[in-house]
């Protein structure tokens, strides 16, 4: 089931706007995100306080217990990127003294503030009443909120989530996060919101989370089928939107994932491939695993380079950045605080390099992928530092070819379409040759 929709028109373009096809769940998701922006815009008028927090390891269920509106700066930056607004914001931030070397999410966010704090949808974005700095898998988050605090003097609460340096979550790590949630985070949320913490309310949200998580996993794992009914990277960024952001724990998110799962199961029954912006993909020629975030400023152009060649991303590590649900984690209403801690500690970028390699190798095997593609993001050291070793190790362990491209999250200056296209074409050729060689060896 799919519906044609208008894609966001490029800035100041007089060209005819191409019609893109989207699944109904994608439309539902878009409506949810837009509504959240509207709610944020009117939060203060409605007497609501606003918490800003980050995507990986966010405590959405907990924040909702205090009736706080939720703003996610990475989402704001990527939405601005998709709407071709981020380039100017980044340059504005650089003119304001920020280095060209640092994360462009941060600069897009700061540039947006300099430009009058208007959000991606054109609605104003309120200044947060609380910066909930849940510091999972990325040191830059810490500096990011320090920078916002420096500018706006917002109250900040830190949740330090230790890294899985040894490739496991120790009891000490769990205890540390639980203690911080109990002794620092909850009291701050109570103070800022004026609402008393109710653990049963948290449990209720977490029940909803677990249902949605179960459905999401079924959707993501549907890509093990041939043909894959979804794209586990370009399509998955729509699928993960609600659960990674302000909606996990809400009944509307549960409903979204129920609808999405039904849609995808129907596609499986019909033996259909993924929906792309130009319609259903006819033939699945290549099955890839992708490591690293997508480029947002040329998202559609980037995706087209894959579906034009019949390449489907069957699964991606980026779709696990806000929770590695496919390896079994679910929010647990019976142990709510402990479960929040476990969630924060388990997000993808909080895994060490050997764990990330194991995960990718497992994906290549379970999803019967032809190889690994790494989209290395200039802005994101958390993802990027070490990716060349990941590439070597995965090739060594799986025998499958891997390729490496480079781009950025939201800085249009670092997206070279011709270079990326060339590399992808060579990569697809390489896969083809390997297949031919393998077939030759069998005969």
């Amino acid at each position: 089931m799919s519906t044609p929709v208008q894609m966001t028109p490029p800035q100041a373009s007089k060209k005819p706007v191409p019609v893109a096809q989207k699944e109904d769940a994608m439309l539902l998701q878009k409506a949810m995100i837009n509504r959240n922006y509207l709610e944020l815009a009117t939060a203060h008028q409605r007497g609501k306080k606003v918490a800003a927090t980050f995507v990986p390891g966010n405590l959405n269920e907990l924040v909702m217990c205090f009736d706080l509106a939720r703003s996610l700066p990475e989402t704001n930056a990527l939405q601005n990127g998709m709407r071709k607004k981020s380039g100017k914001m980044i340059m504005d931030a650089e003119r304001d003294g920020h280095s060209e070397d640092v994360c462009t999410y941060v600069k897009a966010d700061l540039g947006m503030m300099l430009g009058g704090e208007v959000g991606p949808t054109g609605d104003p974005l309120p200044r947060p009443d609380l910066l909930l700095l849940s510091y999972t898998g990325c040191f830059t988050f810490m500096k990011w909120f320090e920078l916002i605090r420096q500018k706006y003097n917002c109250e900040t609460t830190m949740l330090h989530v230790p890294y899985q340096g040894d490739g496991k979550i120790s009891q000490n790590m769990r205890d540390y996060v639980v203690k911080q949630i109990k002794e620092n985070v909850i009291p701050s949320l109570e103070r800022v919101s004026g609402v008393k913490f109710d653990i049963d309310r948290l449990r209720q949200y977490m029940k909803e989370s677990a249902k949605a998580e179960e459905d999401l996993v079924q959707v993501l794992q549907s890509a093990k089928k041939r043909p894959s009914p979804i794209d586990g990277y370009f399509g998955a960024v729509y699928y993960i939107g609600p659960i990674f952001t302000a909606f996990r724990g809400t009944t509307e998110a549960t409903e979204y994932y129920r609808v999405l799962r039904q849609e995808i199961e129907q596609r499986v029954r019909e033996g259909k491939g993924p929906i792309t912006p130009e319609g259903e993909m006819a033939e699945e020629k290549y099955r890839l695993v992708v490591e690293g975030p997508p480029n947002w400023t040329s998202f559609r152009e980037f995706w087209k380079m894959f579906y034009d060649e019949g390449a489907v991303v069957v699964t991606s590590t980026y779709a696990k950045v806000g929770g590695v649900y496919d390896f079994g984690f679910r929010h647990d209403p019976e142990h709510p605080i402990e479960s929040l801690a476990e969630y924060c500690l388990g997000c993808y970028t909080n895994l060490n390099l050997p764990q990330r390699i194991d995960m990718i190798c497992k994906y290549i095997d379970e999803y019967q992928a032809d190889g690994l593609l790494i989209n290395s993001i200039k802005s994101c050291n958390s993802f990027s530092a070490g990716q060349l070793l990941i590439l070597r190790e995965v090739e060594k362990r799986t025998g499958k070819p891997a390729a490496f491209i480079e781009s950025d999250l939201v800085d249009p200056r670092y997206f070279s379409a011709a270079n990326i296209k060339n590399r992808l074409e060579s990569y697809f050729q390489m896969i083809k040759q390997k297949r031919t060689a393998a077939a030759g060896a069998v005969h």
Partner: protein
Amino acid sequence: MSQTVAQIIERCQMLFDDLHFTSVKEWKAAVPGRKAIGFMPVYVPREIIHAAGMLPVGIMGGGDQLEVIQGDAYYQSYICRIPRSTLELGLTGRLDCLDGMLFPSICDVIRNLSGMWQILFKDKYVRYFDVPQNYQDGVGGQYYIHEMQVLRDDIGRLAGKPITDDALRASIAVYNENRRAVQALYKYRAAKPWQAPTSEVYLVLRAGMVLPVEDYTQLVRDYIAATDAVARPMRDNARIVLTGAFCEQPPLSLIKSIEMAGCYIVDDDFMLVMRMLFDDVVETGDPLDALSKSFLHRSMQTSSKYDESKKDKGKYLLDSTKLNGGEGVIFAAPSFCDPALLERPMLQSVLNEHKIPYTAFKYAENTGQMAPIREQAGTFADSIKLWSAA
């Protein structure tokens, strides 16, 4: 017979230049069974390694003399230089003398390097060493004590015997002595920067990364005594604080260039491991608790640490500038260093509020062209000396 400054600096220069860590090998060879543990910037509690009878060795990258070939193959162009040169040191066997390696929590690059090390050097002890960003004794403190206990247990196993509380307390005392010596050196340089140019002080500090702490404390004291014994000409230089160089190190020629351009460096953030803790760690009671309390409540501000409130931001830099009579600040950060470069605008805004002049540039540990830096530092020094309100 006491050593001259030239003799001390010659020894330090030799240690600095030796990318094969001969002194570490010699230390190990002197007594069979000795072990050495490497650590990267910014801070690890070296007391734990010392208490096991091991040598903590600071690995500060490859500098400008190391040709990086293999290391470059592991990193994209937009990642700083220190992880690639450190890998180069490892892959070329120069770090074979180390029995283990610690990767402190400083940034995502060094964090991920810990996992790379686990893969590439499977026979070595490797640990990512986390420090708390929550500074409450009962929360971050408890976590930190446990992390130190894990390190203590691991190092004890490597040494073949557990590290006792007494041994740890004794090591704390040894490092307290060292902290006092290094603080005395900084104090001396701030008072008489013409007597202790940073191009020398830097080499003295680097010696502390490879020498046994007891010898090193003596070396620092010897340097202060030797340099104080011979008067050197005082110049009308600008007194500046240098910040941002807490991880990847600038080439020595960069420090010399800043000085030649008319600046006296009166404080810096090189090798913070020696000055991370402001004062003596308590030498009685539970040693891990004492180390934890010092870190939580009496330690340096740096970009890899969280500042709990807005008013804390830049406090150390401001205090240091005032206390050391600094007339300006030079932000010298490695290219692509997220912590330093993200921190910089916040520190600059604090300096603006207090009308303290500053200038900023980036470097890599192998930067070769010093003319632009010399010009920039010279212009900055001139602006302070010629045009400041004073």
